[in-house]
């Protein structure tokens, strides 16, 4: 731990009881990964929310730059044909 006074920030992902995937729940401070897991358990799952927890140090996440939102996301807005909504899905196919 390089900085003993300020614990690094961690992002917490929790898979809830009926959920299929881990979802971002929030962030917290912890000295290392083990402590981050324990803290996540206490901070985010004390009301019986989860069955699995992932933690990742915030600095390890590479995020897109909001300034680039125009070029990144706007081109997709007028291409409705890229949505698979033109197919009839059988009822047996779940979680689409």
């Amino acid at each position: 731990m390089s900085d003993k006074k300020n614990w690094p920030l961690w992002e917490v992902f929790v898979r809830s009881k009926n959920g299929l995937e881990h979802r971002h729940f929030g962030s917290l401070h912890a000295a290392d990964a083990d402590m981050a897991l324990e803290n996540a358990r206490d901070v985010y799952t004390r009301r019986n929310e989860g069955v699995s927890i992932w933690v990742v140090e915030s600095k390890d996440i590479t995020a897109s730059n909001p300034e680039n939102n125009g070029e990144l996301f706007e081109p997709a807005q007028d291409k409705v044909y890229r949505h698979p909504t033109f197919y009839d899905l059988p009822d047996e196919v779940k979680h689409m």
Partner: protein
Amino acid sequence: MKNENLYKYILGIADNSLILGQRMGELCGHGPSLETDIACTNISLDLFGQVRSYYQYAAKITGDGRTEDDIAMLRKEREYVNVLLVEQPNRDFAYTIGRQFLFDVYHYMFLAQLQKSHDVTLSAIAAKCIKEVSYHKRFSSDWIKRLGDGTQESRAKMQDAINGLWTYTDELFHMTDADTAMIKEGISVDVSTLKENYYQQVKSILEEAILEVPESKWFQKGGKQGIHTEHLGYLLSDLQYMQRTYPNMEW
């Protein structure tokens, strides 16, 4: 009371959790970090949950209309039979963790045995509690190692706390009259048999934390007979304030 020994036996278990729960609850809003603050109050709430099961059972045994709240809130200091260890104050975070650790190791071993009690209510409560206590033990042991094997300052504080609390550990293994009476019926745990294993476990974690195991053989006792350190009175005045000031108040 027909089952006086059983009643006293239950209080002997439950009072430890009540008083320790109150001590951990004092950290609500005062923990060293947001995350540890929540962790400590979680432990407190676990303990209060356990206490409710015990006191509800005890209240039923009295058969005189007493409720769990009467038992928790309206006894006098001398009528509380918790061990001295759990009433020791939160001098600093090392003391909080040291007290929790020294109790958790005992608590876990005790509940493992209580699960085998012939009293089905007690064995069911023990089976439910032991999962929570298993986590408490992991939490406090981890912190013992972090602080012991941490910086020079954290190590000094952790050692100081262990040295200061050590004198209260032996009492955990003293048998009360109720303990002895309930052994004959296969209800109680013979706590005196847990002692050796307890000190072995505690020592191995202290050594992992590069902390010294205190050598003092001078131990305090009295809590189980209602003779407490000066700290319990102040704790009870906090705990009981609302019921003493507004009797029978509910919310």
